[in-house]
């Protein structure tokens, strides 16, 4: 018995040490930004020993070409269990991911599934390879090295950071630290705040599915073989197949409110390549009902501009598609754009921000082009639920105010308009 225990211990140590199996030790030892890391809890308490698997979804090109009813596979990125404090970390080299699972700039649509013996929770996000910094450049030349950052624009306007996902199997909540639902806003542009974070962060939980075990077993099998470590694995379709489902085109995406008066009107420009991060619907009953399941970041493929905006909602139209699973949950995911700055304008009651205000001269303009817009918690209507929508004012998205009359111009940050994610113009 002792010799067997020793053998098992040595084998496990070798597997973890070689990177064939990602264990809790990885979270502490890695100095690279992993594609998936975070914390699993149950009703606010750390959940030790929970299974966590990460899979990648096919890119928009493959999804668009997929024939309804035809099968496709997800790519398994890794499997691990949580440490005593509930933390986990998984990494994979960008080079190990086939092109059909990579979007613009090498982005990958990642889904995390965390499970205890009976329940599971799902959270999606889009991750992008981050440029290697000098501090990690030596490691980055390794075939197993990789640094990742969220494709969604961080809430504070800073550079994109690595994902750090909070999952709570008991409360049914999931969110990424860089896109805190406490800072999301409702339709009227009012923040949820910390007290309502759990409400905004509700995501899908369900009975533990076969997908967790299939993915874990695939990596366990791989670990018993010779070869490279931490490679992504194609799941065997017969064990865990997906089918392309129905398109749901032309779904309205409310991503911005412009608060402006007639003497200081707003204009919005979206250029090709602007990113929008939109919610995903998860279902376990054939889409009779859905729960939110995280987000996917989609890039615009065309451009548009609209001026003369006074106190109005701003919309795009999005194409979603159903993805049907025989071993996990079904998902309704955003794929591409149907229309930009669509003709869905509707009145948005004016918000008077008071954190910082200035007076603008008649004849002046103010333009912001790299701020993070607020996340609208129910921005996209995808059927039985509405899911979140967010666009950064990236280099390709501009919000401009044109002051034909002397105006008061205010933002929601006390530091000033340049630090504000929401702005308003009014008479004064």
């Amino acid at each position, binding site marked *: 018995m002792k010799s067997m225990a020793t053998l098992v211990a040595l084998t496990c140590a070798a597997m973890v040490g070689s990177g064939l199996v990602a264990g809790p030790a990885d979270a502490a030892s890695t100095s690279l930004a992993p594609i998936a890391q975070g914390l699993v809890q149950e009703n606010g308490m750390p959940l030790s020993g929970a299974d966590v698997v990460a899979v990648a979804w096919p890119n928009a090109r493959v999804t668009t070409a997929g024939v309804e009813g035809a099968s496709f596979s997800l790519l398994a990125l890794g499997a691990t269990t949580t440490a005593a404090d509930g933390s986990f970390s998984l990494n994979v080299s960008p080079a190990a991911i086939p092109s059909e699972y990579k979007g613009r700039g090498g982005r990958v649509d990642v889904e995390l599934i965390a499970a205890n013996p009976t329940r599971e929770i799902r959270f999606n996000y889009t991750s992008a390879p981050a440029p290697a910094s000098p501090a990690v450049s030596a490691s980055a030349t390794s075939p197993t090295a990789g640094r990742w950052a969220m494709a969604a624009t961080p809430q*504070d*306007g*800073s550079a994109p950071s690595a994902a750090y996902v909070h999952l709570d199997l008991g409360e049914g909540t999931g969110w990424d630290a860089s896109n805190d639902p406490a800072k999301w806003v409702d339709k009227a542009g009012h923040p949820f705040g910390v007290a309502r974070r759990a409400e905004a962060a509700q995501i899908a939980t369900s009975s533990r599915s076969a997908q967790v075990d299939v993915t874990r077993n695939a990596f366990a099998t791989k670990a018993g073989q010779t070869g490279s470590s931490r490679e992504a694995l194609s799941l065997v379709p017969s064990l865990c197949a997906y089918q392309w489902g129905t398109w749901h085109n032309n779904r309205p995406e409310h991503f911005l409110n412009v608060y402006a008066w007639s003497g200081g009107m707003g204009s919005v*420009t979206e250029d090709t390549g602007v990113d929008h991060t939109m919610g995903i619907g998860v279902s376990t009953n054939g889409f009779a009902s859905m729960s939110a399941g995280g987000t996917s970041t989609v890039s615009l493929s065309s451009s548009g501009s609209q001026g003369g905006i006074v106190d109005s909602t701003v919309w795009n139209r999005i194409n979603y598609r159903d993805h049907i699973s025989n071993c996990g949950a079904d998902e309704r995911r955003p794929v591409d754009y149907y229309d930009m700055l669509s003709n869905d304008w509707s009145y948005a009651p004016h918000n008077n921000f*008071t*954190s*910082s*205000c*200035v*007076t*603008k*001269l*008649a*004849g*002046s*303009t*103010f*333009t*912001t*082009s*790299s*701020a*993070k817009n607020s996340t609208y918690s129910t921005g996209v209507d995808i059927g039985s639920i509405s899911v979140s929508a967010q666009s950064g*004012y*990236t*280099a*390709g998205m*501009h919000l*401009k105010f*044109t002051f*034909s009359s002397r105006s008061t*111009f205010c933002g929601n*940050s*006390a*530091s*000033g*308009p*340049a*630090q504000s994610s929401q702005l308003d113009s009014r008479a004064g």
Partner: protein
Amino acid sequence: MVRGWGVRIGLPTAVVAAMGLSLVACGSGNDAPGPSLVLPEGTRPVGSGLPISAPNAPLSLGSIAVCLDRPGKVTIDSVRPKDPTGGLTVTDFALRPNPGWHHHNMLGDQKGTLSDAGFRGVRRTTLVCEAKTGRSSELGLQVTKTGQGNGTSRSFTIRWHSRDRSGSLTVPFALVLCAGPTADTPACAVGPLMPG
């Protein structure tokens, strides 16, 4: 090996460390390093177009927040436009506690001097950044253009010094001083001056 650093470190490491230190400090020898001037968390590129018809007419603008990364004092030595055209120049600058910190209005833009706008010629700050409350200093600029046409700047570069440090800080604020009654014209668009 190099001795005398408290720990043993390799020579290349010591050289790199020394080079790194030399980039950020001017070396007074005191223990605690002085502060650096930085932008508040979440600062993003913005641009403004302002109508200013006559050459050499002063115009003042504010709502540029700056602050310190740790306690101490920083003095601003100069503020210069980047890649200026049309003779755009900064003719005066000054600091004051960010009025937004105390729920008062910041300076937007107005014709006239900084003194007219309520700035008192202060060029030193001790305010450490606190994004949540807006604790910072507001930098006011008095600008003008010498030409008949538009004057532009892609951003502004602040030169500063503290007790043992000096450096420069780029403010991502693009400016067009538009020769006309309105800046809402293609010729006065700030978008082409902004990053990206």
